[in-house]
């Protein structure tokens, strides 16, 4: 148990939020300049 929650819940839910944030961060870092030209 972690903070009263089963490990499965912590890792699955935490992992999903983390992956989403990393995806959007990756998008920002790879976003090209000059798309609008």
């Amino acid at each position, binding site marked *: 148990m972690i*903070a*009263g*929650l*089963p490990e*499965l*819940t912590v890792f*699955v*839910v935490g992992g*999903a*939020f983390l992956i*989403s*944030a990393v*995806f*959007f*961060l990756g*998008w*920002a870092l790879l*976003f*090209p*300049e*000059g*798309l*609008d*030209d």
Partner: protein
Amino acid sequence: MTNFLEVGIVALYCLGMIGIGAWASKKIQTTSDYLIAGRSLGFWMFTLLMFGSVCSGMSLLGVPGLGFKLGWPTIWEQLFVPLSIGFCIIFFGVKLYQVAKKEGYMTVQDYLAERYQSPRAVPGVSAVAGIIVSIIYLAGQYTAISIVLIWLFDIPHWQALIIGAVVVTIYTVIGGLYAISVTTLFQAGLLIFGVLIIGPIVIGNAGGFTVINEAMSTVGIDMVQPWMSSGPVFTPAYLVSFFLLLTVGLACAPHVINNVIAVKDIRYFKWAPIVGFLIYGAVMLLLKISGYAGIALQQQGLITLPDVSNAQDYIFLLGVEHAMPNIYVWAIFGVIVLAAVMSTTDRLMLTIGAMFSWDIYKNLLKPAARDREVLRVSQISVLASGIITIFLVINPPDILAFLIWMGIGVMLSTFAVPLIAGLYWRRATKEGALASMLCGLIFAGVFGYYNKFIGPLPMHFSFYAFVIAIVAMVVVSLLTRPVSKDVLDLTLTGPFIYHRK
């Protein structure tokens, strides 16, 4: 609980919104100014407009309510809805913005008309379906405004409805997207800071995160699991359809997707997805955990649920009342809930105005109409959307609650396939788009009815209609003549998000 200062706080908020509308009206010269703020939205205006558009009326009450009732398996709602902001910007926004700016589009229907070489049928069907779905969705938002004002002032439903409707209609009619984006900046700021302050107080008041989870595990084992082991909702299969419904369905809803056309600079699409995700994610997580806190508070005998059918929707209100027993705090909290509701309501009304004045009046009925005339029609149709919705909600027919509940599902099954296929599949044709829209609309009704009145389906009803819409798009497109290469190149159609230059 009504007193002078409490009325004053809410009145000040309402007058402030109307004042912003009056200020914004001075900037309106053309239809483009009115419908897309002259493509002038800055980074924060745009990001918070996306936030305000997806943060629906019942977010503040319904999110904690669902968490209180079903526990951690419902947490996915807090991931999937924030994801819709980034999904919309990345998968729709980057392409739509570029084509819309070059070709002068006002709505997403302009894109569909060009892409499918269908100046009337595809945008016409899409706009009519969009107006119907948006009015239904709007009815849900007006109902939420009424609930808040009744809770605050103990006034009859019709009075609450008219007060809320008059305020939001005035500033939307006179100020268009300029007014909406500025009011949303204020409303979203109020909502974010309000929840960031109130949420942790409610959670702390219940004993903290660990105590809350321990209290939940005594209610039932599924309450602290990431999904339900059985039952009609929140099983792993249901969650797949729930992701499609919330992330994809909301992203292509007309009142959300049209925001990407109004941005000043495409470079805002670089950081807006993660900023929108983190801000909305944090707010929604706090709201959900505040709902969980209600379980601990109830077990400790500190709160008692009202004896009404939707008692769980009162859980956050009860948590706030217990943590901060001060009527001025409640009045400010009421304003925060109103801000959340109004930020979606105004955008929906303008979207209805845009789809009627631009897609139906200007593009279908009277192509020779002058800009000034289209602007007036936009304002009149926004006003009409407000009046029609009041009549729908003041004595709601039995079917209305069913339709409101179906709203996002219909958006997913009707709009997602023609939009995604139009942007990413070069073989998609006009006939395929029409077939997928009509199949999506009809089968959303069929499966929605079955799920509600005959027997629960293992996945959300919109999933089945969505799959049928895909099949209709693929089969009919492959049987009909493809769109010309020049048009596909102009509309940036193909399996890419952008080409590096």
